[in-house]
């Protein structure tokens, strides 16, 4: 076809003929932007980490192969990765949901810890008297409520007192850890736990078991369901719509008569509730009792998961799985390559920095923005 491109009339008719494909292409292009940029960031991060390994005289290829084997290569390793992803799904929501309101909450760790303590505290008197399912449900409710109260404190202080929520949530996290130590060392302490003060262990029958056919506990299902529900809440309900408006412009939301205080209180309570649920899952599915292991840093890793997922609840699922996989491969890398266990931390840190840096590339590539396809010298129709 011999078409003179610079003739506006002809190129216009050329685009007209493609109308049937363009909306689809445009939709795909917009969706592709975060995926392509994030994958690019992952590859750049892996390349940088390779340089680090080469300077130590270790082979990056061997490491990445071990990472694949240990994290994703077999059904066994996939299950290991999924188990590690489970708490991150919930703690990431604790950051992602308030972020839609424009709040940066970094104290999810506190809700995890207190949620775990609350779950253990409510379960122990009921063991032996109430049915297993009731105990587990009550544990989940207790974890959710306590975690929700804790994080909503940060949200409400922000709204009603103007206290910065990032700082207050961080302070509340430290206070929560001190409270946990007080409970676990004091009134809730199991006298039999000598070296590692803990609450009395849950009897095996009361533990949250594995998903049938898998070596992964039910916490994974809880986390995935929470992510899906959060996505529906944010994207499909009027509550979520109002929250997004308030996140975009508080003043505009107030002028519209939206109850900003209730939105902030509600959403931070749900967010903290999920983190509290992560604590309950740690107690009911992993530890069997509440102890200092609850403060294992899930709250802090959750912050990074949420940012990598760009605060999209559905995107949290693959990001958490990916990070869970890296963590799961840690032991294998340590044994086979003689590298310290902190290798995984360095790799994660490198990836986080590079991927977050890649935020700067959003909106820079015209190919991802259909509105710009026909401007300048770039013409999607002719490519």
């Amino acid at each position, binding site marked *: 076809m011999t078409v003179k491109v610079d003739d506006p009339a002809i190129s216009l008719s050329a685009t007209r003929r493609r109308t049937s494909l363009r909306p689809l292409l445009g939709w795909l292009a917009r969706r592709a932007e975060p995926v392509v940029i994030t994958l690019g960031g992952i590859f750049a991060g892996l390349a940088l980490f390779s340089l680090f390994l080469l300077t130590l005289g270790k082979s990056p290829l061997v490491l990445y192969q071990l990472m694949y084997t240990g994290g994703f290569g077999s059904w066994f390793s996939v299950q290991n990765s999924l188990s590690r992803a489970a708490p991150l799904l919930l703690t990431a929501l604790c950051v992602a949901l308030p972020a839609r309101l424009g709040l*940066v909450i*970094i104290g999810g760790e506190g809700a995890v810890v207190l949620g775990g303590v609350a779950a253990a505290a409510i379960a122990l008197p009921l063991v032996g008297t109430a049915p297993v399912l009731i105990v587990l449900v009550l544990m989940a409710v207790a974890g959710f409520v306590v975690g929700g109260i804790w994080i909503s404190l940060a949200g409400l*202080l922000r*709204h*009603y*007192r*103007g*206290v*910065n929520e*990032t*700082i*207050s949530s*961080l*302070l*509340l996290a*430290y*206070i929560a*850890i*001190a*409270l946990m*130590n*007080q409970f676990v*060392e*004091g009134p809730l302490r199991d006298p039999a736990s000598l070296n590692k003060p803990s609450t009395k262990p849950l009897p095996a029958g009361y533990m949250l078991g594995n998903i049938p056919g898998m070596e992964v506990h039910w916490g994974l299902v809880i986390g995935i369901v929470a992510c899906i529900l959060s996505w529906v809440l944010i994207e499909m309900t009027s509550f979520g719509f109002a929250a997004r408006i308030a996140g975009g412009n508080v003043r505009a939301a107030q002028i519209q008569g939206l109850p900003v205080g209730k939105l902030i209180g509600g959403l931070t309570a749900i967010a903290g509730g999920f983190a509290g649920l992560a604590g309950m899952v740690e107690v009911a599915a992993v530890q069997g009792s509440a102890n200092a292991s609850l403060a294992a840093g899930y709250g*802090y*890793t959750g*912050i*990074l998961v949420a*940012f990598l997922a760009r605060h999209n609840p559905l995107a949290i699922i693959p990001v958490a799985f990916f990070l869970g996989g890296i963590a799961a491969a840690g032991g294998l890398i340590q044994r086979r390559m003689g*590298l*310290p*266990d*902190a*290798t*995984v*931390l*360095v*790799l*994660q*840190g*490198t990836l*986080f*920095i590079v991927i*977050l*840096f890649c*935020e*700067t590339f*959003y*909106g820079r590539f015209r190919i991802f923005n259909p509105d710009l396809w026909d401007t300048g010298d770039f013409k999607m129709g002719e490519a």
Partner: protein
Amino acid sequence: MGDAAIGIWGVPLAILAGAIRVSTPFIFVSLGETITERSGRINLGLEGTLVFAAMTAYAIDVMTGSPWLGVLAAMATGAIFGAMHGWICKWPKVNDIAIGIAMMQFGLGLAFFLGKPFIQPAAPHLPSIPFGVWSTSAPVRAALDINSLFLIGIALAILLWWALRNTRIGLILRVVGDSTDAARAMGIHPDRIRLIATTAGGSLAAVGGAYLSLYYPGSWNERISSGQGLMAVALVIFARWNPIGCVVAALLFGGAGALGPALQSVGVTEGYYLFYAAPYVLTLVILIATSSPTRSLAGAPGALSLTK
């Protein structure tokens, strides 16, 4: 035992001693963060810088036998971490808070990775640095056994306080922090100043880390920091971005932290673990009391994303 001789006076004395001993890292970390935030950026990654600096200082000390060389090496690594943060955050759309947390993870990981060999052979030189000579009589001497870094920190705070008000550099820093546009109109490159400020902030925070591994607690291990780097951000707000305030905040914070152990030493053990929360509760209460929903905090740099 001398402790029994002073009786009830042991409590305030122990709190004072604890405040001085514990506050030094807080002083340096919060002074560093003050410089950074005064330029309009926030660096949440100082925890990583601090721990990496603690490792570097200790490693250099083990290898050369000179603690001061360790402090200098730590400052150099802190400057590199700060410069990394400053350079990455100058790009549009990059979130400084998220990068800070990522840098924290990276710094911790790298410190644990490279610091493994220095956990065990730690014992040889315990490089306690010469102490301030302030001894009167009695067991009070132990309490007033002051590390020279503490005195340097106070001198530095006064110097910074003076320099922020009275020097050209201080003025440039304040302009950049208050309004990016005004700085541009004056012909200043805001990103360059912020890069320098974050670098300086990182190297100061590193001194705090060096204090941890070289003086108190005085060894390198993976649990060396109890969140001093993260708390810097809260302390700076507490101090209202004022270097002198940083010293006061650090002393108060350190003193509140010493409350539990001090009371325990005279037999009050009830709620021992709750006293660990005392510094955080104190900071939170002061924040609540001084914040207002209608205006931003007094003294807050205008361009700071944290205090809108």
